[in-house]
């Protein structure tokens, strides 16, 4: 039953870290907690035979996105002081709403019975070549289109951030 134990530990970790992300005051801590959360999720990936994905996940999120965030935090030097004040009512309301959200979603899906593991196990779905094959055969067009998306985003970022030359 070690596996379950692992699952629970990871789950607990991710939930806790997520909660910290939401609640902690200092932006820096937020970022760090989020990174923790991401690592825990990566752990889940590993358990779910998505090894390659797990790696990419670490690289992209922890490596790229969060660093970017961190940079921004530094750049705008956000800190506990600059953190806008939130009234208690707001907190309460959002907690309740979030909880409700959870309940409603679960209630909506309560009666789902998902088949347990479909044997025989295809344990290699997470391997690079598998993913690669998929990506460059079935999902070629979306893959190409992400290029457009990225370009758009890049140009956009430039448009917004570039110093005016005049």
């Amino acid at each position, binding site marked *: 039953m070690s596996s379950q134990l692992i699952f629970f530990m990871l789950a607990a970790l991710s939930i806790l870290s997520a909660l910290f992300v939401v609640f902690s005051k200092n932006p820096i801590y937020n970022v760090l907690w989020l990174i923790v959360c991401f690592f825990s999720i990566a752990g889940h990936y590993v358990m779910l035979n998505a090894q390659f994905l797990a790696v990419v996940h670490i690289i992209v999120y922890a490596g790229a996105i969060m660093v970017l965030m961190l940079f921004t935090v530094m750049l705008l030097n956000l800190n506990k002081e*600059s953190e806008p004040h939130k009234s208690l009512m707001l907190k309460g309301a959002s907690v309740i709403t979030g909880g409700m959200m959870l309940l409603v979603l679960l209630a909506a899906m309560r009666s789902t019975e998902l088949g347990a593991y479909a044997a025989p196990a295809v344990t290699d779905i997470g391997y690079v070549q598998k993913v690669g094959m998929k990506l460059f055969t079935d999902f070629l067009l979306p893959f190409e289109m992400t290029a457009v998306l990225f370009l758009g985003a890049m140009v956009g970022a430039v448009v917004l951030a570039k110093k005016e030359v005049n």
Partner: protein
Amino acid sequence: MEQQILQAHPQNWYLVLSTILFSIGVMGVLMRRNALIILMCIELMLNSVNLLLVSFSAYAGNTDGQVFVFFIMVVAAAEVAVGLALLVSIYRNIATTDIDVLSKLKW
């Protein structure tokens, strides 16, 4: 060994887990006023989705889910880039990331 792990706990757990994470993300978005944090919470939500997808793909033995996760990551990256750019340009103008300040446009 993966088999045991998978058989060990039913898929619903993942469903519940990611729903919880998702809701936490929502909660965060609702609660925080700092644009940057909100951005993070959104990332969190995205990740909960990723987790869900991965679990599905694992249980169904179907790679599509994982591939989709890639796209989500891509989009997330792009969004973050643009979002931060916007954030910076706003910060240039009004020197805050408090979204409550951003309410010139109303009624």
